[in-house]
């Protein structure tokens, strides 16, 4: 297992947000984390990235315990979060944001190559590379956020609600890009989504989070057919 989250419990301002969450992600997998608003999806991802502390339980990256490391150390280990709200630097240009994504890397030639890759993935970013990130449209910002995450050469890329507030056409484009990243770069992806259909259609396995606990998990194909999921999330 690349990433293993073992029974973590998380408080936020003295409120218990995650009661007991366990999940696993293997090399090269796409894992979806679905559930309603306020279920704890964002909290789970933030805790794996190190922005929030666990009060019990453990997180392992390739059997190495990491839940006491600060977020910048976890980033250097290859755990990269594209947060909700995108985590861009609004007063820096598109290209500077991509450079910041590769902050820890020294391999200049490889950074160039990766920049070419993300520009080919999202050509609109190349057109706007001198523009300030804060002036991009919502969809372009989300593309830049994913591209910036990729520039770190992550081992596991966590995406928090990439489809939030975007037009369906852009969502389709992003979903395609995400599976392309996974196919070509062999990067493990953990995606938290309220757009359950999109998340289940690109992922291999999924976890359903409700009220701070995992209530269901399994292969995405099976979950798509599951009557409970159909009724509560897909509106069928």
């Amino acid at each position, binding site marked *: 297992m690349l990433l293993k989250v073992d029974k973590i419990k998380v408080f*936020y301002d003295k409120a218990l947000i995650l009661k007991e969450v366990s999940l696993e992600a293997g090399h090269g997998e796409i894992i979806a984390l679905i559930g309603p608003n306020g279920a704890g999806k964002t909290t789970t991802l933030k805790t794996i*990235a190190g*922005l929030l502390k666990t009060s019990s339980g453990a997180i392992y990256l390739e059997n190495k315990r990491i839940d006491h490391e*600060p977020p*910048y150390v976890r980033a250097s280990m290859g755990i990269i979060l594209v947060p909700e709200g995108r*985590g*861009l*630097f609004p007063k820096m240009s598109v290209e500077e944001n991509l450079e*910041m*994504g590769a902050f820890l890397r020294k391999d200049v030639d490889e950074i160039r190559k990766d920049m070419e890759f993300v520009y080919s993935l999202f050509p609109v970013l190349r057109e706007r590379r001198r523009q300030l990130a804060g002036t991009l449209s919502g969809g372009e910002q989300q593309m830049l956020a994913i591209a910036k995450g990729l520039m770190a050469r992550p081992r596991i890329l966590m995406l928090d609600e990439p489809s939030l507030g975007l037009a369906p056409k852009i969502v389709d484009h992003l979903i395609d890009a995400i599976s392309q990243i996974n196919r070509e770069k062999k990067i493990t992806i953990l995606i938290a989504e309220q757009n359950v259909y999109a998340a289940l259609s690109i992922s291999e396995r999924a976890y359903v989070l409700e009220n701070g606990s995992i209530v269901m998990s399994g292969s995405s194909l099976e979950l798509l057919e599951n009557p409970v999921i159909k009724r509560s999330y897909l509106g069928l």
Partner: protein
Amino acid sequence: MIAVGLTMIFGVMRFSNFAHGEFYMLGAYLTYTLSNYLKTDPYITMFVAALIVGLLGVALNKILIKPLYEAVARARGTAMFYFQDLNFILMTIGLSILIVDLVLVIWKPIPIRVYTVMSDSVIKIGFLSIGAPRILALLIALISLSTLYIFLRKSRIGKAIRAVSQDPSAAMLVGINIWKIYDITMFVSLTLAGLAGGVVGPIFNLYPNMGLDMIAKAFAVVILGGMGNVMGAIYAGFLFGVIENLGGLFIGTAYRDVIGFLIMIIVLWIRPQGILGR
């Protein structure tokens, strides 16, 4: 220079350093003492003194600010927040009083004059004669501020500092060690404050309260330029100086300070985010 350092600390850490003026004062006193002991001109020792003051800033960060941050974070139970807690303001005010009293004990309350080889040189531009120390002060300020500007724009660390000021969590997520950035920010801005003290030494007398007299003006300049806006602080600094002195000329030197703060109140009234904004 003082206001630029102050605004930089605020911009990066959201931390209001009320002891900032004391580091300016320390820069001036250290320059004076180093010159006496080493028998070297203040225009050389002021750079050494400024670096010492900068290192004091790093020590301050490690010994006082970080433990207090961690204690407050634990008490609140959240991992991230800015340094806006009342504890930090009280801490810097306490530190300011402590430093002033220490200086009173070490250097005594009598004002001190700093002599340099430049003290008696006068430079004539047309019909104006200006003392060389004043010209040098302007030059050193211009050079250090433009170096800072290029450092923040172009260097890897400078970009990391800007990233932290725009979004500290996002900066951590790309692997930036924010505590290292806070150390560098403290070092750079307190070195600037120390250097400002050194530069002012040959122009005015040194006295232990000089930092306290300066800090209110520095905050006024920071507010004028937009809290945390480095370029804004540079423009506002020039504007503030010109307005104060012109006002002093036309209305009377007794009202100099009144005019500067009046402008601040007017700007806060019509443009509360400062001239250039955040």
